[in-house]
């Protein structure tokens, strides 16, 4: 008995150690970027174009480019993803087809990001002749975040109790009316969580936009969706590997802006989900 108590102590200590091995480096990464990046952040850095071959000036075009891309991706992915989620949770039966759809979603989520880049290049840039443009990049990112939006929205829809639907149907509402006026409103927080997570993912990815939209250096802002654009993650890649002698401060500053954007969105999503779970009355 003593022996098993001691081995339990050792085992738990090891499990705790493993957890620390993940948590401490994560904390270290975030802290080091904040500490070293903060001195670079000022109004000029956020609102100016890059100057002197990206060794000075700001990152404004990259921030704007990323915003355009993310908005474009969500405009494309949210309607399709939401309707797909409605199909899976409200219409599909447990059969071969729904099994195939779920498998397809899992696979979409698992396709390497650089393969999305290849696909976007082949379909949107070359085949549809959109060229390297915000349109091509947004569509590529949109397809990439589709599984996130479908999965989270579907969970949200399925967590609405069955009795809600039954009451609505028994009062003579049609199936679509029930979904539109009863199920959807109750699932909004969950859908919002998924949407924000999708936004965060789209904002941080580099590989899918490499060949579909990203411009190395572009001093003016894009004028239409058929223009190339700079993007924050690609800009960070460029100034940390392609351009020599960039001040470390600028690199850290860029990393900080990107990290803040992505982590902020994720934090908002986590908080919405947490609040919603607490408030839930059923």
């Amino acid at each position, binding site marked *: 008995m003593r022996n*098993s108590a001691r081995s339990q102590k050792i*085992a*738990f200590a090891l*499990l*705790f150690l493993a*957890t620390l*091995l*993940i948590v401490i480096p*994560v904390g270290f*990464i*975030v802290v*080091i*970027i904040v500490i070293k990046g903060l001195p670079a952040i000022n109004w000029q850095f956020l609102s100016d174009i890059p100057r002197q071959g990206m060794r000075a000036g700001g990152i404004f075009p990259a921030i704007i480019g990323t915003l355009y891309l993310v908005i474009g991706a969500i405009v494309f992915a949210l309607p*399709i993803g939401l*309707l*797909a989620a*409605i199909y899976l949770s*409200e219409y*599909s039966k447990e059969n071969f087809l729904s099994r195939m*759809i779920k498998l*397809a979603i*899992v*696979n979409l*989520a*698992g*396709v*390497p*990001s*650089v*393969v*999305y*880049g*290849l*696909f976007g290049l*082949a*379909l949107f840039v*070359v085949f549809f002749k959109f060229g390297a443009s915000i349109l091509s990049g947004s569509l590529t990112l949109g*397809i990439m975040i*589709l*599984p996130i939006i479908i999965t989270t929205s579907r969970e949200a829809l399925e967590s609405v109790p069955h009795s809600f639907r039954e009451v609505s149907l028994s009062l003579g509402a*049609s*199936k*679509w009316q029930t979904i539109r006026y009863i199920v959807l409103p109750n699932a909004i927080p969950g859908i919002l969580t998924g949407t924000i997570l999708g936004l965060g993912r789209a904002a*941080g*990815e*580099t*590989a899918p936009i*490499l*060949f579909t939209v990203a411009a190395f250096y572009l001093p003016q802002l894009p004028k239409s969706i058929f223009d190339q654009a700079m993007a924050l993650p690609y800009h*960070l*890649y460029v100034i*940390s*590997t392609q351009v020599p002698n960039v001040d470390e401060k600028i690199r850290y500053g860029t*990393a900080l802006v*990107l*990290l803040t954007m992505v*982590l902020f969105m*994720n934090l908002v999503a*986590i908080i919405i989900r*947490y609040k919603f779970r607490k408030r839930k009355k059923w």
Partner: protein
Amino acid sequence: MRKLKEFFIEKLILVCGLASIFFVGVIFFFLLKEGLALFKFIKPVAFLLDRNWYPISEPAQLGILPLILGSLLVTLGAAVISVPIGVACALYISEIAPGKLKEVLKAGIELLAAIPSVVLGFIGMITLVPWVKNIFYLPTGLTALTGSIMLAFMAMPTIVSVAEDALYSVPKSYKEGALAMGATHWQTIWRVMLPAASSGILAAVMLGIGRVIGETMAVMMITGNSAVIPKMIPFGFVQSVRTLTATIAAEMGEAVVGSEHYFALFAIGIVLFVISFAINVTADLFLHREKTRL
């Protein structure tokens, strides 16, 4: 009128429901369309097994064996690091951590998953690369090992969250039964919980590995990108390698549309797509089996 409107809405919902299958199909089709054109120039066997990748020499040598081995080496290293740590962390979070800490740890893991890979690559370049260089007295810190360590951090969130789900879905009665028979908490975890959740944990490991093989930016920034056949383990780890993904990302910008090189990069895309497809389908089977059994 209303009936008509609802008819169209429901058809639209069905179409969107099928969209994911459609997109998987379209992705595969376009990879094939561009990639298979390569095999007019070289044989598939030569493409997979030739030892030289010199895409811009005349004539181009397009053997991806060094790239495949580079990917395998980096992935193996990342798996060795991330699997034990990830599973242990999942056990800690699901079985040991008290309520509040559990929520915080879960949120922390989610944040790690959210850090963009280019940011991890950047941090790896600045911190990890010099460390590896100094510790092993190497001419450069851009090695397979550096990539493995950084990639382990990208695999861990996947491993932890999927494994934690698997442990969570083990029926409470299993645990209570073991405890009631006088087993300690650790004995219950080790002899009852782990075996009961084993297929889910296996799925977690596979999905983590899938994430590592597909990772691009961080790998490209810190593994050194030299397309040579790596030496035997463990010496291969302290050497620069180049992965399948990094090759596509680094070279597609220069490849001329319609050239042999361009087709070859798409053919690498096919290889990656098939690998990730196989991993995801298998992992899904494991997860499904768990659900039906319990």
